[in-house]
C-alpha cells in the first residue's frame, strides 16, 4: 500500500512552491483584476523554464518526460498560489488532447510549443447556458472550415491554439461531434474578452467564420475523447482546488490566531474553531479523494472515470467551503478589496464551473458508480 507521493516528487513540489511564493506575489495575482495583462506572462515563462509545463509531456515532444503524478503536485501549487496563468487550458486540456488523440504530426507541431510556453492552447467546448450536451453544439465544420461561436472559452483571448468540439459528418447524438485544431491567430477568428467573476483567469467568446480546422482524432469520436480528457483534467484541477482550499484554511487559521476580540484570540472561540475544524475536514476528504484520482491517472486504471468524478466533486466543495469561510473568519476585513480573501472566493467559484458544474459531476459520478455496479454484478 502506497497512497502517497515519493520523496523526489515532494521535493519537486517544494521547489515549485518556493518559486511561486517568490514570483507569484499578490500584485502578480491581482494584475488581471486591476486592468493589467490578462495573464502573468513572465510567471508563465518561468514555469516553462522550470519544466513545470512540460513535466508530463514526453521528451520526444519537448517535455520533461516525468509522470502525471508530478503534474498533480504542480497543479496543487498553482492552486495554492492562485497563479494567474493558463496552465489548465494549455496543459491539462490542450496538451492532453494532443497526447490522447493527436497524430504524430500534430503532436510534433504543437506539444513542444505548449511545453515551452511559446504557444498557449485551450479547449473551446461550451456554447451558452447550462450543461453541455451534444445537441447544444451548433459550431460545425464543412470542408475543413469551422463556423460558429464558442463561449465562454477559458483563456480564449490569449490562446494560440484551440481544440474545438464541432459538428461534422453524418453521425447523430454524441457521434455527430468531432474535435478540430484551430489556429486562433489564423483567418476567420474573432475574439472578445468577457467580464467574469474571476478576472485572474480570463474568459473569452470566440467566433469562427470559415476558420481552417484540422480534425483531431476520428470523425464522430469527439465527444468520447473530450469526456476522457476532461476526466483527466478534472483530477488535475481537483489538485488545484485542494491547493487553494489548503491556503484559504491556513489564511483563516493565521487570522484566527492573530485577531483579538473580547479580550482573546478569536480562534479560542468555539464558533470560529469549529468552523476551521470543518474546513480542515472537507480539505482532508478532498485531498484523500485527489490521491485516489492521482493513482488512477498515473496507473491508467479502469477506475479513472469514478476517481475523477469523486475527486472533482469533493475538491470543488472543499475549495468553495474553505474560501467562503475564510472570508467569514476574517469578518468585515475579509470583504475588503485590499485583503486577498476574495481572490480565493472568486477562484473557488470559477473553478467550480470550469469543466462543468458540480451538479454535472455529481450526476456523472452516480452514472459511473452504476456502471461499475453493473460490471461487478
Amino acid at each position, binding site marked *: *500500500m*502506497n*497512497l*502517497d*507521493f515519493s520523496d523526489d516528487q515532494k521535493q519537486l513540489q517544494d521547489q515549485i512552491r518556493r518559486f511561486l511564493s517568490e514570483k507569484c506575489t499578490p500584485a502578480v495575482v491581482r494584475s488581471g483584476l486591476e486592468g493589467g495583462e490578462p495573464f502573468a506572462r513572465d510567471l508563465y515563462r518561468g514555469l516553462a523554464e522550470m519544466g513545470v509545463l512540460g513535466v508530463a509531456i514526453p521528451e520526444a515532444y519537448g517535455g520533461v518526460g516525468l509522470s502525471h*503524478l508530478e503534474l498533480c503536485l504542480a497543479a496543487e501549487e498553482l492552486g495554492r498560489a492562485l497563479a494567474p496563468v493558463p496552465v489548465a487550458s494549455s496543459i491539462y486540456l490542450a496538451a492532453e488532447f494532443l497526447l490522447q488523440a493527436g497524430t504524430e504530426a500534430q503532436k510534433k507541431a504543437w506539444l513542444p510549443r505548449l511545453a515551452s510556453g511559446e504557444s498557449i492552447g485551450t479547449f473551446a467546448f461550451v456554447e451558452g447556458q447550462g450543461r453541455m450536451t451534444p445537441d447544444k453544439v451548433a459550431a460545425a465544420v464543412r470542408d475543413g472550415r469551422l463556423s460558429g461561436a464558442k463561449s465562454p472559452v477559458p483563456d480564449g483571448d490569449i490562446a494560440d491554439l484551440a481544440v474545438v468540439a464541432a459538428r461534422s459528418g453524418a453521425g447523430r447524438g454524441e457521434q455527430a461531434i468531432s474535435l478540430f485544431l484551430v489556429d486562433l491567430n489564423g483567418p476567420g477568428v474573432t475574439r472578445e474578452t468577457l467580464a467574469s467573476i474571476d478576472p485572474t483567469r480570463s474568459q473569452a467568446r470566440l467566433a469562427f467564420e470559415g476558420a481552417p480546422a484540422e480534425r483531431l482524432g476520428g470523425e464522430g469520436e469527439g465527444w468520447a475523447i473530450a469526456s476522457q480528457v476532461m476526466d483527466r483534467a478534472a483530477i488535475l484541477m481537483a489538485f488545484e482546488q485542494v491547493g487553494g482550499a489548503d491556503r484559504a484554511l491556513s489564511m483563516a*487559521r493565521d487570522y*484566527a*490566531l492573530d485577531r483579538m476580540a473580547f479580550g*482573546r*484570540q478569536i*480562534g*479560542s472561540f*468555539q464558533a*470560529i*474553531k*469549529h468552523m*476551521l*475544524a*470543518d474546513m*480542515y*475536514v472537507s480539505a*482532508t*476528504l*478532498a*485531498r*484523500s*479523494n485527489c*490521491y*485516489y484520482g*492521482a*493513482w488512477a491517472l*498515473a*496507473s491508467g486504471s479502469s477506475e479513472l472515470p469514478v476517481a475523477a*468524478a*469523486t475527486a472533482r*466533486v*469533493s475538491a470543488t*466543495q472543499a475549495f468553495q467551503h474553505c474560501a467562503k469561510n475564510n472570508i467569514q473568519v476574517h469578518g468585515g476585513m475579509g470583504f475588503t478589496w485590499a485583503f486577498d480573501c476574495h481572490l480565493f472566493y472568486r477562484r473557488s467559484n470559477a473553478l467550480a464551473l470550469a469543466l462543468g458544474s458540480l*451538479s454535472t*459531476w*455529481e*450526476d456523472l*459520478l*452516480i452514472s459511473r*458508480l*452504476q456502471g461499475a*455496479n453493473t460490471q461487478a454484478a
Partner: protein
Amino acid sequence: MDFDDTPEEAAFRAEARAWIQANAPTHLEAELKRAGFASSGIDSEDPMAASKAWQKRKAEAGWACLNWPKEYGGGARTPIERVIWGQEEGIYGSLSSPFIIGHGMCGPTVMAWASEDHKRRLLPPLASGEEIWCQLFSEPAGGSDLAGLRTSAVKADDGSGDWIINGQKIWTSGAQHSQWGLLITRTNPDAPKHKGLTMFFLSMSTPGVEVRPIKQANGQSGFNEVYFTDVRIPDDQRLGAVGQGWEVSLTTLMNERLSIGSGMSTGFPELFDFCLQAEVDGRPAVDDASVRSRLAQFAVKQSGLKYTGMRAITALSKGETPGPENSIGKLVAGATMQELAMFALDIQGQSGAIQDESSPMNARFQQMLLRSPATRIEGGSDEILRNIIGERVLGLPGDIRVDKDVAFRDIPTSGRK
C-alpha cells in the same frame, strides 16, 4: 503510488488468509452477513459464546491482539500487519466486538501503568477473550468534561491501605459481561479538578458493585449504569500515582479515538444498493436527479474516509506514524450516517416511518436513524472532536477554562440560580 503489498506484507497476508480459511467459524458466515446495524445477526447460538470461541482460537494460534507483546498474550506483529489481519478477517472481525473496549483501551492502559505481575496475570486472559473488561469513566456529571467526575475514593480508616469507592458511572459498554473494570475516581476534592483524580482496576464481582442496564433512546440496552456503594479496592490495584489519574486516562482516551475512528462505515454502499432497487414515481430512485445529487455527496464522503484510511495505512507500511488526518474519521462517519438514514427514509415516503419486517433491507435505515445520535456522542462528541482538530491539528488556542485553578469542591454544579 499503488495499492499493492510489499513482499513481506504479501507473505503475511497469505499466512493470515490460509489460517483464517482453515479455522474461521464458517458456519456463522451467512448470519454475520445478515447482521443489522446494531445486532450481531447470530441467532443459531449464543453470540457471546461464538465471540469467545473465535477469540480463544485466535489467541491459541497467536492471532489475538496482534500488536501486543507475546508475553502478554499478543502476536508481536507490526501495525501494518494488524491492518492486513483486519482486512483478511473481514466479517469474522465483527465477532470481536465484546472485546473492543478491553483490547483497544483498557489493555493498553494496563500495559502502560500496571506492575509486571499484574500485566502477566491480567493481559493474557484479556487477549484470549476469557476475561472481558469495561471502562468506568463517564458519569452523569462528567461526560465531555470527564475531569468533572465525582465518584470518590477515600482511604479506609482501618490502616489497610485499601480504598473505599462510592458513586456512579454511566454509559459503560459491556459492564454486564465484564470480569474487570478500569475505574477513574476522585481522591482529592480540594485540588483543581484535573489534579485530584486516581485510576484503579477492579473485579466487577467486588461486593458493592451493581450493574444496571440503561434503556436507550432507540429501545436497546448496550450501555449500563454502574453503582459503587462502599466498594473496597486494595491499593495495589491503583494505576499510576495518587492524583495522576488524568494522565493515566489520557492513555486510554488516545487509544479510544484511534480504535473507534478507524475504518468506520457511513452506510453508503447499503444506501446505493437501496436506491438501485427502490422506486420513486415509478422509476428507480437512482434515476431521480435530486437523489443522484445527494448520493454523490454521500459517495465522496465515504470515498474520502476510505482513502484517508489508506493514507494512514501507507504511513504504517513505511514504519511512520499516521498524520492528524485520521482524526476526522468518526466526526465524518457519525454525521454522515445520520443524514444518510434520514435520506433513506425520505425515499421510502410515509412508509419510512414503519419499522417492521416490511421495511426495506431489514429496517436497516430505521435502525440507523435511531442509533446514529449515539455515534455522534460516544467516544468523544462531535464538538470535542472539533476542539481536538482545532487545537491539536490546527494549533488554535484552547478555550478559556474558568474552573482550571479552582478547588474541585468549589466548582458550581448547577446552572440554576
